[in-house]
């Protein structure tokens, strides 16, 4: 698709960022001490902190990733919404208040509150850094993905812009500024998502032959399979002048047929769709992106253009059937949105790469008309298809992921540090409740947004991350500009929180407590700012390097590692008096390394990162959670029992 940099988008974007930076400088004057830098003096009002939780938590993965996944595959993206939100229940009922009670600035503080052990601080500090960096990579990649089509800049520019802006924010004012940025971003995200949802409902569904550009995708046939297919196809009257291309090489095995336009030589690919009921086959027009061996880029058989009107991929997302033969539903309600879709048919798109011997690679985007009842049920996305397989091992992968999401939220260091920005436990509790309300409301909206994008006719078939912004663009240029700017500041908000958590780990946990560097308070703040810059720079580099990797995949990594490394210790410290410091250290280390190792040896990583066949993977399924989280608990219990004599003198439940 051709994305024209929208002047309005750039302008609004600059206003947002400018306002954010201004706020940051103004608030910066108040954050001179380390209590101010890391924990905003514990003076953030609970309501603000609650919305800031939302602003912190609802990252690019939530807004862009989940909506995009739902737009392309249906219900399955919503499983992430459910899992992510459920994690907040763990945070509220199990972790929030005890965390507040146990620590001062960081997660390592809480873990170490009763032990005063450098080993614990080291393990926890490293765990914080590791999880935060893993979480940073998808955010930075997300920034690049957003900026490219919106502002027309290449990927690395987007990454650099986010990195630089965040570093400035975090260095000038630390937690105070970060909190207000996240509060602002959280409110805007929720409000405008609600507006967009309202517009989706008001628009309703309309049967269309193609996307927003008006191009009607052709369907040929039905062809009788009993005869010779090539002759049948060549005899089709609609194929006015186009000749059939004889399949060779990689094309012979593929489920596609190609025709050539004799006038300009452009090749159109058609997918073969079996009609099981009548034993015939339909030909559906597909879209293609071809990269020739000498670097030329062809779209649908013609050289890709740069300006509007020149050859490009058509926007997609159309409804082919509505209930009771309607062609237009008019405005729909919150519930009838789903019941209508349930009885409709929508064209989804699959993709397949064909590699030819001469080095030409063609990606075919083919139509998959899908019934609404299938779209709205779980298990359509390849990652979740395991639930429908008869094999227990595939179901295990699903269970493992849902467990990691459930346990992961409460274990994320950049969320945990937000408990220290309010003044007492009651505030910690209330702010978590506000957080849950706003985050929950937003996740309800994601289902509407995703399905609305799926039927919007504005989607880019190559890029699911753009589904939500493109949906807005199809509605209103202004809304698109605002949503894009919000999406971008979404990344800013989350990245700020992550860098702050990392800076805290380095300064407070590692340097001060492990290496016993005696720093004055001002020095600590300065070191924190320097580490923010360093971590920010590392994040920029990694974001550029990992451009190709799937964003939600990386976030899943971070959740699994966080849940395996952090949750067992956090929970056992609160509920089991037999916990020893060696047990905690062992649990953090074992949880972190086992989940990392599992991920590196999994089928997903093999195929997506190393480019090796997934079947060669060493571990039986990809999500480590269901193995490594219990492993963390077991390690803690086992090691604690072995080191019984090092138990602290006082029972943990009492306050010191």
């Amino acid at each position, binding site marked *: 698709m051709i994305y024209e940099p929208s002047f309005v988008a750039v302008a609004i974007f600059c206003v947002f960022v400018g306002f954010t930076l201004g706020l940051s400088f103004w608030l910066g004057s108040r954050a001179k001490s380390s209590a*101010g830098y890391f924990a905003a003096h514990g003076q953030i009002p609970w309501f603000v902190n609650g919305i800031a939780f939302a602003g912190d938590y609802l990252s690019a993965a939530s807004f862009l990733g989940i909506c995009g996944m739902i737009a392309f595959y249906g219900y399955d993206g919503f499983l992430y919404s459910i899992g992510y939100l459920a994690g907040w*229940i763990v945070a509220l009922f199990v972790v929030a208040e005890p965390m507040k009670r146990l620590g001062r600035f960081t997660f390592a503080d809480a873990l170490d509150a009763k032990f005063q052990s450098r080993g614990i601080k080291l393990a926890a500090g490293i765990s914080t850094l590791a999880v935060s960096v893993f979480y940073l990579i998808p955010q930075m990649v997300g920034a690049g993905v957003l900026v490219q089509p919106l502002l027309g800049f290449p990927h690395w520019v987007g990454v650099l812009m986010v990195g630089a802006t965040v570093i400035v924010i975090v260095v000038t004012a630390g937690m105070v500024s970060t909190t207000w940025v996240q509060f602002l971003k959280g409110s805007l995200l929720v409000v405008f998502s609600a507006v967009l949802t309202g517009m989706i409902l008001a628009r309703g569904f309309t049967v269309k032959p193609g996307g927003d550009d008006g191009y009607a995708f052709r369907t040929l046939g039905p062809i009788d399979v009993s005869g010779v297919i090539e002759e049948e196809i060549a005899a089709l009257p609609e194929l006015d002048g186009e000749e059939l291309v004889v399949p060779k090489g990689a094309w012979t095995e593929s489920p596609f047929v190609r025709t050539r336009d004799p006038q300009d030589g452009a090749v159109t690919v058609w997918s073969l769709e079996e009609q099981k009921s009548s034993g015939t086959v339909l030909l559906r027009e597909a879209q293609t992106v071809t990269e020739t061996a000498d670097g030329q880029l062809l779209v649908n058989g013609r050289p890709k253009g740069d300006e509007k009107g020149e050859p490009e991929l058509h926007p997609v997302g159309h409804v082919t059937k509505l209930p009771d033969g309607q062609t237009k539903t008019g405005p729909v309600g919150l*519930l009838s949105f789903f019941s209508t879709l349930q009885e409709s048919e929508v064209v989804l798109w699959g993709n397949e790469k064909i590699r030819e011997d001469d080095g030409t690679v063609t990606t075919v985007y083919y139509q998959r008309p899908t019934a609404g009842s299938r779209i709205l049920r*779980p298990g359509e996305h390849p990652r979740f298809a395991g639930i429908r397989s008869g094999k227990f091992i595939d*179901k295990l992968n699903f269970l493992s992921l849902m467990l990691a999401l459930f346990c992961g939220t409460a274990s994320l260091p950049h969320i945990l540090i937000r408990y220290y920005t309010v003044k007492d436990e009651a505030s910690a509790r209330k702010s978590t409740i506000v957080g849950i309300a706003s985050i929950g409301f937003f996740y*309800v909206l994601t289902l509407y947004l995703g399905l609305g994008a799926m039927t919007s006719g504005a989607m880019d078939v190559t890029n699911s991350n753009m589904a939500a912004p493109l949906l807005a663009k199809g509605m209103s240029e202004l809304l698109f500009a605002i949503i894009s700017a919000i999406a971008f500041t979404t990344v800013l908000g989350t990245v700020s929180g992550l860098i702050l958590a990392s800076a805290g780990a380095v300064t407070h946990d590692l340097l001060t407590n492990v290496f016993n560097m005696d720093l004055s308070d001002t020095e600590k703040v300065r070191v924190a700012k320097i580490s923010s810059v360093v971590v920010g720079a590392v994040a920029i580099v990694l974001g550029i390097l990992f451009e190709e990797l799937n964003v939600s995949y990386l976030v899943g990594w971070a959740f699994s590692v966080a849940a395996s490394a952090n949750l067992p210790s956090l929970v056992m410290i609160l509920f089991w008096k037999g916990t020893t410091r060696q047990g905690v250290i062992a649990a953090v280390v074992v949880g972190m390394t086992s989940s990392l190792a599992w991920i590196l040896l999994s089928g997903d990583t093999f195929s997506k990162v190393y480019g090796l066949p997934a079947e060669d993977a060493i571990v039986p399924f990809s999500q480590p959670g269901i193995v490594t989280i219990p492993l963390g608990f077991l390690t803690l219990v086992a090691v604690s029992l072995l080191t019984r004599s090092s138990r602290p003198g006082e029972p943990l439940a009492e306050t010191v």
Partner: protein
Amino acid sequence: MQARQGRIGLILFAIYLVLYGGFVLLNAFAPEMMERLPFAGINLAILYGFGLIVAAFLLAMLYGFLCGDHTRSKGPQEGGE
């Protein structure tokens, strides 16, 4: 007070765990059930999913209400910065 709040927290957590666990296990072992249409032409997958989100909010509000404004204890405050 602290013990009471702790217990309320764990009970509510257990309730949610059952609800969430039910959802996850149904999806894993009986996915066909999720396609049923129990209400207003909407399938169980969507209803249960929304239900979990609403339940999270309600349980959170209930917890807040039951705990009142009490803090479990006065934890370590920022001493003299």
